[in-house]
């Protein structure tokens, strides 16, 4: 698996991910990044070892004498076949599952001349989770953020005033950040994003881009 990512989630996000306390929308983005980034996977393993040691040090509590027998009975009568894992090499598992189960619409929706969106229903109310597609060389409107936004590049690349972002790169936009992403010339770019508050257009003609102003946490 490739590992050319330059932009990673910060350590506290990985720690919360490892402890299972990171909120759903952020977890989706971190898990998408981990799909591409072997160095963060190695970090996560070390953090999981801490969690595992913690669990080993939890005060053990006796289970009932018949607990094992009733467990085996349940296993034998459930008819559930053991699963062999079948990793998906193209897309992060969580994104793949969302695409199969939770797309609001099966088609891309046009946001602007160069950006399409596909929104997910993720059962939480704080963030809108969506895929954005920027066409090759496409310019997005210059905009500012009122809330936090996590973005992971799933395919292709895009750039803004600061850097070029490639497959697997993880970005955080904080309230107050203003930027103008641009799709790479050589092909479309698809990003996963979780957005917590409407973004504000700084372009005076911004009112034409109304869909940008709506977020729909679902």
């Amino acid at each position, binding site marked *: 698996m490739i590992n050319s990512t330059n932009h990673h989630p910060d350590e506290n996000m990985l*720690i919360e991910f490892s402890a299972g306390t990171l909120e759903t929308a952020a977890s989706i983005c971190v*898990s998408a990044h981990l799909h591409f980034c072997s160095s963060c996977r190695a970090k996560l*393993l070390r953090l999981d070892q801490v969690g595992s040691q913690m669990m080993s040090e939890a005060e053990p509590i006796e289970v009932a004498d018949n607990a094992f027998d009733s467990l085996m009975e349940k296993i034998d009568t459930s008819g559930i076949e053991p699963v062999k894992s079948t990793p998906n090499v193209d897309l992060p598992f969580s994104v793949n599952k*969302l695409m199969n189960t939770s797309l609001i619409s099966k088609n891309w929706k046009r946001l602007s001349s160069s950006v399409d969106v596909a929104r997910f229903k993720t059962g939480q109310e704080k963030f809108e989770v969506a895929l954005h597609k920027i066409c090759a060389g496409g310019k997005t409107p210059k905009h500012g953020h009122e809330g936090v936004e996590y973005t992971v590049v799933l395919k292709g690349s895009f750039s803004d005033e600061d850097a070029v972002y490639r497959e697997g790169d993880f970005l955080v936009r904080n309230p107050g950040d203003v930027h103008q992403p641009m799709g790479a010339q050589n092909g479309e770019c698809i990003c996963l994003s979780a957005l917590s508050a409407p973004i504000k257009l700084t372009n005076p003609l911004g009112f034409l881009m109304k869909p940008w102003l709506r977020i729909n946490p679902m």
Partner: protein
Amino acid sequence: MMTSTINTANSTANNNRVTVNRVTTLKSSEKRSDQWSQLLISVGENRDRKAFAQLFKHFGPLLKGFAHASRNEGWFPGLGDDLVQEVMIKVWNKAAGYNAEKASATTWIYTVARNCRIDMLRRKSNTQHLPLENEDFWHEPDEETPISLLQQKRSEDKVQASLAQLPKEQDQILRKVYLEGKSHAEASAELGLPLGTVKSRVRLALQKMQIIVSKEAQE
């Protein structure tokens, strides 16, 4: 590819790759190094009920203890027994996919338990349908560099030793995060500390344990 309709992206996404099970050829020195991983391999390869019973005997009470350590919203008295059952069923069903070169049995079972615990609590406190559970964030990519059981055992022994030497307040914050299942924001509210302090204290503890590398040391 991902072009006009989103659906088409799934056709390439379903090119599943078969994982190769390399655990059958463990060196004898490694076989002695971690009995739990050996037992788990046995369950995965041979549906070995005796090995599974031994794992249950060891991990059952720990899992129940882990459930009771939770201080999360949605906690209920039966969580312990429910968690033991749900985790061990998953262990039985997923053992065939366990790869000892990626993680020890204890760490692997921890990740199953962590995901189960949070998912059970969320199901309890949230009536809305959640299309994704914590379990879905856990994935098993193919690593280029396998880690031997012996190496893992050594690094886990180090974790155990360095955890025991942490100053009290660093130990306390890690327990809040990992055992009680508190987010940084919740820990900050409970301890009456600014969020930034909680974040840096957690990082400091893990730097001290040499789990993460301090920024200063990197430069």
